[in-house]
């Protein structure tokens, strides 16, 4: 058994150590799903540090890079081990008339690292696309983003259309100018201030 504590190395953002640890465990025959669990444990630690104010967006982005590069080493071994279990499904998209995607992409990465299946429908997304994807993927959560206040109307209309469709998904909103008041105005189920809000609120919704 490798002596490298992968979860701690992820926690410390020590990419070289994480990679060494993963490679060593693969060589030792440790099942991919167990290695993945250690990586996810590390990401949970990163989340706690972020919530405590010890880590910032910069560390979140680096942790996602470390996780992603390490998880890639597991490759097909992960699929072969039957690791298709996810906590739940989340659809993410930036609403119509807004092409900004940085926040959405960060949330997508952090949700994925925390065990969610994420279906990213992109930016400038019309209502019909959201509805079609909801019909197809049956998500527990739909996350809507915007950076422009001019997209508030589109956000509100999208929330209304999702509710009217009868979908049971929890609809969360976020993005630069979005706050609690905008979420209420949109009649969304909740407002996420940051990526870890999205993780916690999505966990509650599944």
């Amino acid at each position, binding site marked *: 058994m490798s002596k490298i504590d992968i979860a701690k190395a992820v926690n410390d953002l020590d990419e070289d150590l994480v990679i060494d640890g993963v490679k060593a465990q693969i060589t030792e025959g440790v099942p991919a799903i167990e290695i993945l669990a250690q990586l996810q444990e590390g990401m949970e630690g990163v989340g706690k540090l972020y919530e405590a104010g010890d880590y*910032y967006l*910069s560390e979140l982005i680096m942790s996602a890079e470390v996780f992603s590069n390490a998880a890639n080493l597991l490759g097909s071994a992960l699929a072969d081990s039957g690791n298709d279990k996810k906590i739940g499904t989340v659809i993410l998209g930036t609403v119509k008339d*807004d*092409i*900004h995607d940085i926040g959405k992409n*960060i949330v997508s990465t952090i949700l994925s690292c925390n065990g969610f299946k994420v279906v990213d429908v992109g930016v400038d997304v019309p209502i019909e696309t959201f509805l079609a994807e909801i019909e197809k993927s049956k998500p527990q959560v739909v996350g809507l983003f915007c950076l422009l*206040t001019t997209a508030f109307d589109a956000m509100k209309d999208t929330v209304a259309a999702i509710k009217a469709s009868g979908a049971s998904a929890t609809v969360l909103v976020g993005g630069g*100018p*979005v706050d609690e008041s905008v979420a209420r105005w949109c009649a969304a189920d909740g407002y996420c201030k940051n990526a870890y809000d999205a993780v916690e609120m999505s966990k509650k919704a599944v």
Partner: protein
Amino acid sequence: MKTTQELLLERKTRVNKAIALEKTDRTPLILMMDAFCAKHVGVKMADFCKNLKASNAVMLESAKRLGDFTGINAAFGAGTLFPIMFCAKAKLPGRELPDDALWQLDEREVMTIDDYDTIINKGWEPFLQDYLVNRLSYPLDEAMKELTEVPQLVKNFEDAGYLVYSPVVAITVNEYLSGGRSMPKFMRDLFKMPDKVEAVLDVIQEENNESLRQQIRATKASVVFLSPARGASEFFSPKLWERFVWKYLKGSIEVIIEEGAAADIHIDSNWGRDLEFFRSLPKGKCVFETDSSTDIYKVKEVLGGHMCIKGDVPAQKLALGTPDEVYDYCTRLIKDMGTGFILSSGCSIPPNAKVENVKAMIAAVTGNM
């Protein structure tokens, strides 16, 4: 009835006194607005973005319709200039976007890690020119030609009695790389190759500051808008922030002050953690221009009496709130912030702000609700 020149002098004096932390005849109101003016006047965004002259005419018309306020942040809409400032493509109305859509930055990784070596070896300006023209397909010559008209665009406002608050606009060097590399890639670079990123930023900083000096001397600007927007404390851990944001922000502020101008620091997002750093800047020479993400009362607590504060009527309040809500918010700010305060929107007034809400801001400083 005052002449427009008397009004202009009165308004300049009001702003200069606020920045110097002196008592003013009334609270200055600077409107940071561009796309809002197009909606206000009823001009399509595509026509507004046609050229700087067109946006200037629309903004001036909007200002005249709004009435008695101190000044406007800039004399023209800067959407078409975004690629120069952020090293990223901009999608424009009537081109990639519908005629009446707002321009948007289309940020993705265009600048590569290899470009860092090019910048270190060949310098920033030669790299930037090639990058803008050949990588972003940006019409640089056309833009430079348009920029020669800026003094006249400023004069158009001044002739109408309005102060153009910050005729010189600059950004901090981290913004170039954050835009060109994309913010996530830039942040990863800070962990994976910090020394190289710092070397690149040093090269850009040296050239940028020299260019900033020349611009201040040429325009005799009394206020320079300096944006470190994506350098917010909430994005970076303290060590990274001090090394890759504050060092360069402070350096540029010092150049602005050395040249005899005041630095208007455009603070988007939350900088609450690091407010104490701003106390190291000279007293009465800077403006903390906040968008409401940083608690303005905390700003007052730490920087009040040391630095003028400008802000911070939230964009969502201007778009979704009522005139009474905006008026109450503004009058409370005016009372609580006291001397050394400039009322303004938090960042730009959004294009879907209600005209009545912008008028409520004016009423809050004139007392005519």
